[in-house]
């Protein structure tokens, strides 16, 4: 095989690479797991392509060829809850969703707050169908009390830190985390929800929570948390990344902070730009219980605006698998979270691109080069010499989300049965096809 000039050629697709500012029909040549050339179509090129073996060529005509998508917010549940997801199954779900890299959150059992657990995850991720980057904890055991050994975590390969699932409630600890993290040039990611204001809420505080008699978690819990952290970020000069932003005023706060030059970035999840709390309806569907909760129409529209004007840098799924048994219960007893790796791209296409909020270039930027930049990851580009992590998208393919098709071990999605447009056609990791439709 090594005598071949190319291992793989993706021919005739529309290449969309925001990092390169590239959006045109071209052929992509892959050799030794890397991108070796991008060539535009020509008579000579067509003749040359005809000489290649069939299995060396992927015909991508009518398709989009984009850098492998990167999801900087997923829960892989291993170690601890392998019944819900394993690193292997989570990576298969990632590949099916077009993601070639994921960043896994540290709220596993045990927590990823030490080198051994980072190493464990990395070892498990070897040979998986997506690259796994580890996000370490901010505090020991995610208890919000003492800083974790952040230096050790980074040394072992952690790309960021977060206590996701929990807000670092003590402002002094958060300040120290920001100061300390500066030495390692990593972002401190925050699940921004003041616990005192959440006050045991199980859905957004709104007319809907009033109607349903469910305890509400107010939007101000997020706004207060975001404003506090912006103030701490400003004073420390560190890098702050706000996870899964969901309220109108939190988006406004970040817009304002960015204008002032504060080093803050943020992400939004599909469920926060697609759904509203009215969806909980009369059915108390526990798959709609997420944290932060699905909010009002005004909040959802503000998240979309934030995506449009660039206040929100990237799109992440917050893929949070839960077993059927755990979700099959009373609404206020159900764990928070929904899976998202396999539905994100279709939701982005159907609800952002098709509705004219983002063009494909912007959408892909928020799924590739922006997350890569924020977490300092390789990838997110089709530049010559880069790893051949590539996603091929069938841009207008109509499909229906089916529970039995999920590669994830869990099926907790409220989108089951939804019809979407835009589906992953093939996912290529390091030059190898890891998913095909």
């Amino acid at each position, binding site marked *: 095989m090594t005598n071949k000039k190319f291992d793989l050629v993706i021919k005739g697709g529309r290449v969309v690479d925001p990092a390169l500012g590239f959006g045109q029909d071209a052929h992509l040549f892959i050799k030794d797991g890397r991108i070796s050339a991008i060539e535009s179509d020509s008579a000579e090129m067509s003749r040359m392509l005809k000489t290649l073996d069939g299995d060396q060529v992927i015909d991508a005509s009518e398709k989009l060829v984009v850098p492998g998508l990167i999801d900087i917010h997923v829960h892989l549940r291993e170690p601890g809850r392998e019944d819900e997801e394993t690193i292997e199954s989570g990576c298969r779900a990632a590949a099916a969703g077009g993601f070639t890299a994921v960043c896994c959150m540290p709220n596993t059992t045990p927590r990823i707050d030490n080198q051994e657990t980072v190493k464990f995850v990395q070892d498990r991720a070897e040979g998986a169908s997506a690259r796994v980057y580890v996000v370490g904890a901010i505090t020991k055991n995610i208890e919000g009390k003492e800083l974790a050994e952040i230096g050790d975590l980074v040394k072992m390969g952690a790309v960021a830190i977060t206590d996701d699932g929990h807000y670092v409630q003590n402002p002094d600890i958060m300040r120290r985390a920001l100061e300390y993290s500066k030495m390692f040039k990593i972002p401190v990611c925050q699940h921004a929800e003041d616990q005192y204001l959440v006050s045991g809420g199980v859905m957004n*505080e*709104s*007319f809907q*929570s*009033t*109607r*349903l*008699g*469910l*305890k*509400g978690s*107010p939007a101000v819990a997020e706004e207060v948390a975001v404003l506090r952290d912006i103030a701490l970020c400003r004073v420390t000069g560190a890098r702050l990344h706000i996870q899964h932003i969901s309220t109108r005023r939190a988006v406004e706060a970040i817009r304002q902070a960015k204008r002032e030059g504060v080093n803050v970035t943020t992400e939004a999840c599909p469920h926060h730009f697609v759904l509203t709390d009215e969806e909980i309806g*009369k*059915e*108390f569907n526990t798959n709609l219980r997420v944290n932060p909760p699905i909010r009002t129409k005004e909040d959802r529209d503000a998240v979309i605006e934030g995506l449009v004007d660039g206040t929100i840098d990237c799109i992440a799924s917050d893929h949070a698998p839960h077993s059927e*048994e755990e979700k*099959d*219960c*009373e*609404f*206020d*007893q159900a764990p928070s979270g929904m899976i998202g790796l396999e539905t994100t791209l279709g939701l982005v296409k159907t609800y952002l691109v098709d509705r004219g909020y983002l063009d494909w270039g912007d959408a892909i930027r928020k799924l590739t080069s922006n997350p890569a930049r924020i977490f300092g990851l390789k990838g997110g580009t089709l530049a010559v010499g880069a790893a051949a992590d590539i996603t091929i998208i069938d841009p207008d393919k109509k499909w229906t989300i089916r529970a039995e098709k999920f590669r994830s071990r869990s099926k907790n999605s409220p989108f089951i049965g939804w019809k979407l447009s835009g589906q992953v056609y093939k996912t290529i990791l390091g030059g190898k096809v890891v998913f095909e439709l």
Partner: protein
Amino acid sequence: MSHLASRHLLGLEGVSKEDMTLILDTADSFREVLDRTIKKLPTLRGITVVNLFYEPSTRTRISFELAEKRLSADTVSFSPSTSSVQKGESLRDTVQNIEAMKIDMVVVRHKSSGVPYYLTQCMDANIINAGDGTHEHPTQGLLDMFTIRRKYKKLEGLRVVLVGDVKHSRVTRSNLWGLKTMGASVALCGPSTLMPYEVERFGVDHYTDIDEALEGADVVNIMRIQLERQQAGLFPSQREYTNLFGITRERLKRLNKNYTIMHPGPMNRGVEITSEVADSDQSVILDQVTNGVAVRMAVLYLLSGRKKEEGADND
């Protein structure tokens, strides 16, 4: 029309005026039965009803049990606090086990909002909500409306004030949906920390000044205040609550002449209501209890009648 649109009673939100009128009219005839020497009817003979009370409520449970017995249903009462729940059994498994014993109707009380709906997804029985979390308590709402209607011969045009912890009260929600549908005007009154979020979207008036709220009202329905709300910091003390919102004889002067005092019970005498008011001629608190049996008989009867028909499952 002699059938309800749904084979379950999960709440009063969305229940039509026709359906509520049918329930209240049916309850009228059962109410007469309760005054007879022989109070039993054969209507539900052969039907098995399970009273599934995950949360203790002696009066609601007894009221349902009596209603079932008056209609000759076979009844079982089940309080899972001392059984399978402690062994970690899921709600679905518990109710599916019960259903496997061939039962027809379930009356459910649970601390989590939405559980009656959830049961409709787990089993085929007719489900009657006997109070779920802070969501709804439809039979209480119906019996309150029934009691008001018996006195005034109408609901339309009356002004009903609900006073107290309206935020955490499922009785409030059921009253509110029911009364509004029936054409009454509803006002809520209580401390601002016990007012539901965006309450104005229900299309009701809301007050934090009790004297303003009572001005020109016909009915005052007093919601219970729980000590745990004070512990949660929602109001400073019971003493202050009583001073600001307690229903005293003095405050009743603002009501319309032929006014009515209601309370779904259990009462905190001296906190939300004085004994003088609770035991006055205008108080219908004990009528509510009697009427509760008739209303529950009506609900059981109307839902069981549906059960014998196929199709048309329209909830």
